[in-house]
């Protein structure tokens, strides 16, 4: 019994060190820009880089837009499938899983063929068109997480009966969706949102191939050309991801305490 416990702890320690040691190494290295002393010089250099600010801001904006439009696509879809078309559920689930199976590079080449400047819908012909296309590709990438998170949240409430209750009180569908359904699946929407945020902030392939000034390509550029800054950036990227994860935990815990028997 005791030995088993010990074995488990050793396994956890080995697993954890596999993740933590490189991270600590990176952190330590990022602090060593100034010779002979630890300092935040690398971070200062990163934050004062105009390109950092631009690409970071751009990706932030893209992430927010992706989340908003993703929500507007996913919540009504999941709602409709649950309410009216339960038989197409497996199909929808399969479709939402596709982005996990198809490599991003394949998707983006598909986009480039479909929407190039000589096609019917020449999205890549203009900057705003390309931005739109990039946002939709981010939406595609986040679909598996977004759909599952929202659908799980919907399982916790009786969507059909709530809809009927609202209908019998005279409500039309926009009211039902935004006043009765949306607020009750907020936990799912938010956890989907944070995952989407983390994905968009780090995404490289799509942004690079569509040639947009996003944070992912910038990370790559800096990594190829500088010494200490890449480590600082890696630590920053980790912090963003972890913050998102922490917020998911927080939100789901908060939601549980609000509706334990919803």
């Amino acid at each position, binding site marked *: 019994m005791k030995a088993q416990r010990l074995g488990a702890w050793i396994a956890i320690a080995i697993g954890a060190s596999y993740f933590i040691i490189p991270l600590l190494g990176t952190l330590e290295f990022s602090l060593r820009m100034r010779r002979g002393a630890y300092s935040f010089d690398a971070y200062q250099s990163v934050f004062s880089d105009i390109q950092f600010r631009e690409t970071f801001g751009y990706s932030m904006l893209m992430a927010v837009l992706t989340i908003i439009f993703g929500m507007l696509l996913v919540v009504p879809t999941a709602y409709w499938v649950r309410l009216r078309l339960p038989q197409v559920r497996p199909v929808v689930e399969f479709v939402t899983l596709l982005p996990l199976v198809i490599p991003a590079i394949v998707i983006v080449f598909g986009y480039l063929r479909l929407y190039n400047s000589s096609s019917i819908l020449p999205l890549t012909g203009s900057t705003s068109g390309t931005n739109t296309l990039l946002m939709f590709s981010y939406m595609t990438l986040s679909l598996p997480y977004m759909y599952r998170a929202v659908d799980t949240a919907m399982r916790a*409430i*009786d969507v059909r*009966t*709530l809809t*009927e*209750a*609202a*209908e*019998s*009180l*005279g*409500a*039309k569908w926009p*009211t039902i969706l935004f*006043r*009765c359904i949306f*607020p*009750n699946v907020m936990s799912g929407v938010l956890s989907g949102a944070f995952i989407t945020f983390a994905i968009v902030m780090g995404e490289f392939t799509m942004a690079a191939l569509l040639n947009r000034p996003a944070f992912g390509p910038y990370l790559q550029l800096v990594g190829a050309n500088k010494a200490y800054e890449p480590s600082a950036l890696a630590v920053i990227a980790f912090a963003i991801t972890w913050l998102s994860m922490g917020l998911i935990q927080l939100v789901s815990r908060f939601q549980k305490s*609000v*509706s*334990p*028997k*919803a």
Partner: protein
Amino acid sequence: MAFLKLTNIQKSFGPVQVVHNFDMGISKGEFVSFLGPSGCGKTTVLRMIAGFETPSGGSIVIDGKDQGTLKPNQRNIGMVFQAYALFPNMNVHDNVAFGLKVAGASKADIDTRVKQMLGLIKLGHLADRFPYQLSGGQQQRVALARALAVKPQVLLLDEPLSALDAKIRISLREEIRQIQQQLGITTVFVTHDQEEALSISDRIVVMNAGRADQIGTPFEIYNTPATRFVASFVGTLNIIEAKVIDPAAGSVTIGGQPVSLKEPIASLKGGDSISLALRPEAGSIADGSRGDTALPGEVVSTSFLGSVIRTKLRVGSDVISFDMFNNPGTVPPVAGENVTLRFAAKDLLVIRE
């Protein structure tokens, strides 16, 4: 003139017809219960009234207005669900106010009306609570207030009490009935609990396999069941197989003993079998008890049900139950004892199949 008129309603799901020729008129302010076993189509009829299902045939008219083409949100109907269905993201006040807000009432009007409704269900002090902070009974009362707040023409309740425990069920059904009478609102109440239906309804519709077997007051349903199904579903009833001797004189035999029904038996001839029903409370074995008919039998068993003692008696090939009140002096009969069951022949009901 019926306020809510259901004319020859049919409903099929695919090839399966689940409601057949449902026909009834409900007066303004009447409380009608749909009573029947699981799957008999009670909910389906209710949902057609609410507009959630479209009838395959027939018409639904409320206060002279055909509801056929109206969507649920265009009908003026209040609905209470078995699972409460309160909006989890809104507190009690906002739940009750929902229908009024949708209808575009002013804030002052909403507040007045919500206060009034919460007063009606005696939950004024819980206006700020969220549904998860309420007991099941409280949630269902809020659901009732929410449905009534918009002053619906008809209130529909689909087994509103079946998720609650026995004590609350009884007190809440009385509260529902009292509120219904106070507001004079036309109400359809679905239940599979016969005691519930008998205790609070003006009229009961006993449903069986998608048909209304009998429509009548609780008194009529209980005392003069029209079909064998109604007789066996409502209350506890002895079904006794008898043989017709002389239909014109109304004479039959039960377990070989001659019994006179005191009225002619229509459309049967001598030698036919016939089913008769007898309520347990109609029989007695006490000395010198009422009744013009006597049947000798042997006690099979007795069971103690609190206020009454129920005894099973073998008479010929039938087993007949009868009840006696439990007085301190009562000596229950013991198994194997030979006794004489007495009852009035008029209490024997002829069951048409």
